[in-house]
């Protein structure tokens, strides 16, 4: 879309806000990461060398990126059917489902996470039921990766469902009818028509969910505890606990680049799927 010169100037205030409060701090972060001390006296690449020569740091980065994949997949497996049912139901039911999907975003993430502590704990609802069924030992859910994935999937679910729903409700219902008329069953129609057409929404949902999951400091630390170290906690501990700002800046930059690469890959898949959907 082309915007005429005089109209694009309307975006200038927003651009200025972006430069002042996003681009500038980001530049400071990058510059800080290339210094030896917080006062920024000596230039050095030592922080990056330190990160890349230590397997401990990689494993944290790797586990964080992997956590995002697992949580996103769980979100997709549960979120896609919700979006599908919602897109096919009547206006009244649709608004109820959308409300239920959005509801988690209406409470603070801290509150939601604390609620999950109550659910997952030794005395929690899940374990009460589990022990009630005759189990000898309570399940260990709190402070495990399984627990973190469960909570992330619930907390970030709206980010997956809403984009898929938006794309799905734009799909021409005649296409599904045509598929059926031509002899395809429900499953075949879903597999060959609905899923390919909704791919752009799936990709958008995955990007949003993924980035939200891997940066979810509150959920990761409260449900995962200190033994499951993911990048946000690692950055926090280096910055605040160890007071090592340059190294914290360096790992932030590395984390950001890693996430951008993944988002870039997902975006590229998204663009291909759009061409595919149009063809």
């Amino acid at each position, binding site marked *: 879309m082309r915007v005429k010169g005089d109209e694009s100037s309307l975006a200038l205030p927003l651009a200025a806000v972006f430069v002042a409060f996003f681009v500038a701090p980001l530049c400071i972060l990058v510059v800080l990461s290339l210094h030896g001390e917080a006062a920024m006296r000596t230039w050095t690449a030592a922080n990056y060398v330190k990160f890349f020569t230590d397997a*401990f740091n990689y*494993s944290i980065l790797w586990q964080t990126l992997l956590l995002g994949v697992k949580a996103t997949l769980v979100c997709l497996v549960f979120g896609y059917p919700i979006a599908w049912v919602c897109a096919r139901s009547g206006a009244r039911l649709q608004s109820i489902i959308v409300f239920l999907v959005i509801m988690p975003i209406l409470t603070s993430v801290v509150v939601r996470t604390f609620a999950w502590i109550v659910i997952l704990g030794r005395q929690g609802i899940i374990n009460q039921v589990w022990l009630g069924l005759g189990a000898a030992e309570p399940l260990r859910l709190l402070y495990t990766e399984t627990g973190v994935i469960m909570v992330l999937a619930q907390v970030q679910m709206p980010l997956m469902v809403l984009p898929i729903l938006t794309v799905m409700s734009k799909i021409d219902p005649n296409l599904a009818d045509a598929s059926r008329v031509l002899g395809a069953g429900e499953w075949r129609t879903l597999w060959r028509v609905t899923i390919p057409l909704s791919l752009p929404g799936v990709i958008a949902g995955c990007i949003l969910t993924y980035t939200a999951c891997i940066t979810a400091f509150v959920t990761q630390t409260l449900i995962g505890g200190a033994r499951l170290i993911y990048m946000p906690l690692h950055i926090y501990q280096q910055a*605040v606990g*160890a007071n090592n700002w340059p190294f914290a800046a360096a790992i932030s930059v590395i984390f950001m680049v890693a996430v951008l690469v993944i988002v870039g890959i997902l975006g590229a898949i998204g663009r291909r799927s759009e061409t595919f959907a149009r063809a």
Partner: protein
Amino acid sequence: MIIRLNRRTMMGGAAAFGAALAMPHVARAQAKTLVAATFPGTWNEADRNVISPAFKSATGAAVTQSIVLGTDQVARLTAAKGNKPPFDVAFFDAPQVLDAVKEGLIVEYPAAQSPNFGGLIPKFQDKWGPKITMQVIGIGYNPKKITTPPKSWEELWEPKYKGRVGLTALNSQLGIAFLAELNRIKGGSETDFEPAFKALRELLPNVGAIAANLGAYATLWQQEQIDIAPYNFNFVQTLKAKDVPVEFTIPQTGAAGWETSLHLVANAQEPELAVKYIDLHLDPKIQAQVMKPPYDVIPTSSKVTLEGAITTSLAKTHDDLAKVRGFDWEKLNPQRGALIERFNREIKV
């Protein structure tokens, strides 16, 4: 009712709003507000319920609490260096005082303007800011599960507590103090933490949870996720007041702790109010009040007679308090980063 907004009233409103932004002192003159840091837990409750009302009636000014841990306060003050600081009164544990002095984040305490300063036990009269209490660490345990109070730290290693021991990450003062105390007991020194980490490795099979922060640590007790763990006297009292099953005991190796202090921040916006606010914390009447449950704050004024939970589990007299073993933060502080890193490597799954 219909509100008509024309260009003139809009401009008038905008101008008034702009003026208020440009001249904050005009708006503030009506009701001054002091921004004071405080710790999550016992202290933010004591500050809100006891000290703030007393401050309001003494000065007419209000207090806005900034509930932040000491290390976070140092980070925020460092980030704001050269500008308006985010709060006027800093609330530090002993190690942060050293960091803050080194970075020039706090100024010397104007003791002359603080009538209650002289009433403190001499060792609590620090020139950088008065010590307002002590934090003492010992063993916290769930009395529903553990009926005989533990006698020594070694009990944490007993096989019967498999999966029932809790720990907290080293970014909290409790975490680092426990590690230092463990190191001392196991024969280490301030330069050699090997014995502590060896003991920690042996403890890990018993460890059911390591909380990333103190808020999560409290939740572990509330949810009875752990039965026994190093804990802080005051946190235990706060949880007990909320009917959480937890008790506190000092192991045979003795009590270990550190002082907590208040400080006037460099370039404070309201320095006089800040000193008045700090001085209230030293007032024997206030100290006697916050020594009662649910706060059980250990007093530092020589004019307060010890009573309550402090006398049953910690110290009968001021002399007993003076015997609480301290830590050499001058030597420990520079290693904090390395210790956190080592600890994370040891515990990471």
